[in-house]
């Protein structure tokens, strides 16, 4: 009897175990929508993951919902875009504006002419009143996203007619238009006819969003896992319309989960565009999938973002006030080892304080090569020339035995993929510089001028940003080998708070962000002016985390403020900044931040690549909307 019962139980257990397979759809793991044909759907990763307040679309309220769920990419719009790559029709794109901004002589007034024939998705025409309302609504409500920046700049804003907006500024600002220019995001234009009816715009969910972009919201997951957008029937009446009809009728921005899941999802052809994965994930995809394409066809695959990860010193810390100390630490770093540790070699190195991406190699890196070769440091005992122009090539040669034909042989291609030169490893020069700064080496260990062990903490984000963490760990190892008491300092989620408070010796991150496609450096440089450097112990506004102030730098920044955005003088001033930053070394530049965006070509082709760099492929950038008009169904 008992055994009969047991056998019956086993039968039930077997049936229970078989249930999953009876329920499962064969061949479909993720289970894309039944009512949307896959050939009409482009699936992209939203790197913000699962969105907690999924039903919020009011991007003008702080923390209200997701930005990268398609909202900023395909539903919103603003006056101008600057592409970090070449752009569809050049780097600069007049979007809602019909032309470039027009400033008066002293840069206290900006006039904008607007494009005609652009309509919101509910049929209301976009006019100057929307722009004025965007500014005045946010100034009136201090808790809104762009309130502070607009309030501190705008004295008044008027619409003399339906297609003209005049901003009167509180102080001269030749870069005010940057606020309405998409690099990654910007001040998006809000619909006046919707927000006028709202009591408190900071607490309004804007659900369902009225769109100014080519797509409207189709549906979304209340648990924040996915958002589906649908092409507007009147897509011609949007600013994207002039480039042609977008390929995908539907877009899904999803949370595919951690990196391993993203790889599996793409191998199963259920995630067309991965935002970013670790180098190893990219290598696995490149090996296992014939249809996955990254920015570079082969190694190093990733798209170099217009940002510059660096060793960022807290220059208010007594130990790091002296440029000789900062230079000594730079000369102890073997960038080849750091590149291997961080990116397995798939990095684009940079010796100077601008990223080697977009317009910068041609504007800054190549023209400054001769100056860098001749640059000298006085170690106190002799003069040395620390620049080695062959490091990029050395990295390529180092990788060639294992990566074979994937490593380019053309020097220009090598420079584009791996960078140009970097600083030599020179322990002797580093020792002389430290001794010049009053440091002493006792029994193989360095001590500070006041006789304490020379301890340097390198703050990293841990597994939240593994590539940077690996770079920091390698740098700690290299400094330790030289007798410095270097330690890794894992901050995890506390990095933003500690970074702002100056609670670090050094950290691996970036304080340099550029437009990429446009050579102007004001995007980050203006915030490096000493007027914004916080007192020690107080919170430092972005982005001068290194809290570096220098009269020569202030002079450069003030000069840039008084020249136009496209004025060639601003490039010359940019070079002056680079020379000063090389001499002072407030941050040790490492490499571009490579984003391993992987694109599956099973359903869609025409993605932006290094051979056809018409826009940034990274799908959370506002600029990524341009790829939609170039995508075509595959077969």
């Amino acid at each position, binding site marked *: *009897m008992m055994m009969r019962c047991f056998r019956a139980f086993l039968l039930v257990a077997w049936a229970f175990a078989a249930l999953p397979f009876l*329920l499962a759809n064969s061949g479909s793991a*993720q289970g894309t929508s039944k009512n949307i044909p896959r050939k009409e759907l482009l699936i992209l990763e939203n790197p913000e993951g699962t969105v907690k*307040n999924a039903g919020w679309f009011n991007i003008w309220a702080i923390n209200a919902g997701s930005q990268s769920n398609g909202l900023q990419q395909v539903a919103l719009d603003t006056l101008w875009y600057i592409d970090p790559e070449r752009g569809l029709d050049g780097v600069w794109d007049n979007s809602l504006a019909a032309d470039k901004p027009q400033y008066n002589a002293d840069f206290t007034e900006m006039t904008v002419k607007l494009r005609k024939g652009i309509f919101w998705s509910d049929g209301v025409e976009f006019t100057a009143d929307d722009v004025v309302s965007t500014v005045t609504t946010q100034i009136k409500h201090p808790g809104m996203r762009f309130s502070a920046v607009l309030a501190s700049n705008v004295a008044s804003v008027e619409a003399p007619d339906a297609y003209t907006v005049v901003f009167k500024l509180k102080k001269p600002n030749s870069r005010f238009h940057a606020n309405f220019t998409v690099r990654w995001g910007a001040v998006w234009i809000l619909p006046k006819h919707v927000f006028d009816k709202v009591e408190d715009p900071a607490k309004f969910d804007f659900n369902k969003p009225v769109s100014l972009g080519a797509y409207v919201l189709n549906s979304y997951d209340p648990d924040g*896992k996915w958002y589906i957008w649908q092409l507007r029937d009147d897509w011609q009446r949007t600013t994207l319309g002039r480039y042609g009809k977008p390929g995908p009728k539907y877009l899904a921005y999803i949370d595919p*989960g951690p990196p391993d899941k993203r790889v599996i999802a793409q191998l199963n052809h259920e995630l067309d565009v991965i935002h970013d994965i670790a180098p190893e994930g990219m290598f696995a995809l490149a090996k296992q999938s014939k249809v996955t394409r990254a920015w570079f066809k082969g190694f190093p695959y990733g798209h170099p973002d217009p940002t510059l990860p660096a060793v960022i010193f807290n220059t208010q810390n007594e130990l790091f006030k002296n440029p000789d100390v900062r230079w000594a630490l730079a000369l102890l770093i073997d960038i080849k080892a750091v590149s291997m540790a961080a990116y397995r070699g798939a990095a684009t190195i940079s010796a100077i304080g601008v990223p080697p991406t977009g317009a910068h190699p041609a504007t800054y890196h190549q023209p400054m090569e001769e100056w860098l070769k001749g640059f000298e440091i006085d170690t106190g005992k002799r003069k040395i020339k620390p620049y080695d122009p062959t490091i990029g090539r050395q990295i390529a040669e180092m990788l060639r035995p294992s990566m074979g034909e994937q490593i380019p042989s053309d020097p220009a291609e090598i420079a584009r993929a791996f960078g140009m030169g970097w600083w030599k490893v020179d322990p002797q020069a580093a020792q002389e510089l430290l001794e010049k700064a009053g440091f002493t080496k006792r029994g193989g260990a360095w001590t500070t001028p006041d006789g304490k062990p020379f301890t340097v903490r390198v703050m990293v984000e841990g597994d939240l940003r593994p590539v940077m963490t690996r770079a920091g760990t390698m740098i700690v190892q290299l400094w330790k080998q030289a007798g410095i008491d270097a330690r890794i300092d894992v901050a995890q989620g506390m990095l933003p708070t500690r970074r702002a408070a100056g609670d670090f010796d050094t950290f691996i991150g970036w304080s340099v962000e550029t437009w990429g496609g446009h050579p102007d450096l004001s995007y980050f440089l203006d915030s490096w002016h000493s007027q914004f450097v916080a007192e020690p112990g107080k919170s430092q506004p972005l982005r001068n985390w290194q809290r570096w102030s220098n009269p020569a730098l202030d002079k450069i920044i003030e000069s840039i403020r008084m020249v136009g955005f496209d004025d060639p003088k601003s490039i010359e001033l940019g070079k002056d900044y680079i020379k000063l930053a090389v001499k002072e070394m407030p941050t040790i530049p490492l490499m571009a931040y490579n984003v391993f965006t992987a694109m599956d070509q099973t359903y869609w082709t025409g993605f932006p690549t290094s051979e056809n760099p018409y826009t940034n492929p990274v799908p959370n950038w506002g600029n990524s909307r341009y790829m939609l008009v170039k995508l075509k169904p595959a077969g």
Partner: protein
Amino acid sequence: MSGYVAYVGRRLAQFVLVVFIGINLAYVITHATPIDPVEQSISAVTYYGNTAPDAIEQMRTSLRELYGLGGSPVEQYLAFWKRILRADFGPSLSAFPTPVSTLIGRALTWTAGLLAVSTIVAWGLGSLLGGLAGYYQNSRGLKLMGVIAMGLHPIPYYILALVLLIVFGFLWPVLPISGGSAMNLPQTLTFDFVTSVLQHAILPALSLILIGVGSWFLGMRALVSNVVTEDYVVYAELAGVRPWRVLSMYVMRNALPPQLTGLAISLGGIFNGAVITEKVFGYPGVGSLLVDAVYAGDYGLVLGVTTVSILGVSVGVLVIDLLYPLLDPRVKVH
């Protein structure tokens, strides 16, 4: 009976004290964290933007006001307890102004569904098989089951989860690897939606059940192995009581109470969520919500989840403690 009433009173007082201390500890720990939600918000807002540095200070001041982070620490503490007593956890700071209770409510539905079913199934299977294995010690099938349970029990959970993910999501891609349901399905009680929810729950549930069964199996087998040597069991067998009756009425019944205690604590623990399960399988639930809240410095949300969790576990243990004297004659209350 009056002894039992006094016991209930004492136990309820203890419950209130434990909950009070637990919530206060959670409050102190969350407020001692160096993560500042205002700085996190500013960082998120301005990370890629071009907000001028002087504007950041204005934003910082506005946010402190908006998030209700003003006032002295004592005022903030009292305000917190006033809200808690009204079951109001306030707005989430990282998803402002959505109420914390809304976020928890939504996540809890998924977590409770997955964990309650998995816990009960694992407990039922593990206890039943463990009981049988403890009683029928010579059965080859049950011995094999014991070997499997011993093998599964020490496997780290995430390893098993990843193995399942790779096997059924990649090598033989028959099951969904992410989310709670398929894209573009309205969350209504339709056949498509329910089927999709079941499909998406299979892998996370299977991973929880496989590990859970092993654990409950071993516990129950050990308990039954002790009980079968008790005099009353030996006497019943010698007296010719049918084995099924001996097993169910004498052995299992007396071995079950410790397992029931474990079940109650496990069910109470549901309110913690299953962090690893939810992360590995991208399942929407309280565990993921809590981790994200910690990283964002969202005090309100962390406290909300922690409070619900403290209440869940405490209530589970309380219920068991109150039922024990009624169900188990060996437990005396004075």
